[in-house]
């Protein structure tokens, strides 16, 4: 039991080191690429969204698509990547807040809603972490060059 606990603690220590010290661009690259392929703009038209009364959501996805492509194009350039990740994060915060405020029916909340809220917040945390890592890296580079 003690051995298992030690192993779990060791795993979390290693995970912390991976999150703190390892580069994440390859992961970001594949993540954003899958985001592009999953983007609804590629698989639907504006009229379908208008019919469902969500014409603006189409443009939200379009903004996601543009920012994802820009991130892919500038994945090697830390300063530009930082800008696009921050813009993506703002967009993600906007859609998260919109989802939490207006899409969840808090009167008849179900287990699936909890799952969706959790996943949405989890992705927000992930994008905040990526944005922080890039900005932190830029800050340290700037300080080292001074």
């Amino acid at each position, binding site marked *: 039991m003690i051995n298992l606990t030690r192993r779990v603690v060791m795993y979390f220590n290693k995970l912390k080191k991976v999150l703190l010290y390892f580069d994440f661009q390859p992961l970001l690259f594949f993540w954003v690429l899958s985001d592009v392929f999953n983007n609804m703009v590629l698989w639907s038209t504006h009229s379908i969204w208008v019919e469902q009364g969500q014409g603006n959501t189409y443009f939200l996805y379009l903004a996601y698509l543009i920012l994802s492509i820009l991130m892919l194009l500038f994945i090697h350039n830390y300063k530009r990547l930082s800008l696009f990740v921050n813009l993506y994060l703002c967009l993600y*915060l*906007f859609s998260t*807040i*919109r989802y939490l*405020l*207006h899409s969840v029916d808090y009167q008849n909340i179900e287990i699936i809603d909890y799952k969706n809220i959790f996943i949405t917040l989890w992705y927000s945390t992930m994008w905040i972490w990526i944005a922080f890592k890039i900005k932190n890296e830029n*800050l340290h580079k700037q*300080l080292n060059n001074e």
Partner: protein
Amino acid sequence: MSENLTTIIITLVSVLFGAGGWKFYEFLIKNKREKQKEDLSENNIFRDDLISRVDKLEADKGNCLNSLLEISKEVSSLTTKVEFLERENISLKTKLEKF
């Protein structure tokens, strides 16, 4: 429209708080780096001072060694002289006793 406006306002507030938090973090990191630079420069000054003192002591040590060599030479020559004089003194004493 009002739903979107609420969302936009909350997003803006979140972004502003986030930016403020980041600025504060940046300020803390910059301060820490400045302090590290100051410490490093103090350490460098101390190290340079130690290097100059060691150089000076090394030069003094060289001079002292040279002086010691000179003194050793003089002591050796004086010892020889004293031995010679002692022998001469003994021989003179012996001669005087014979007279």
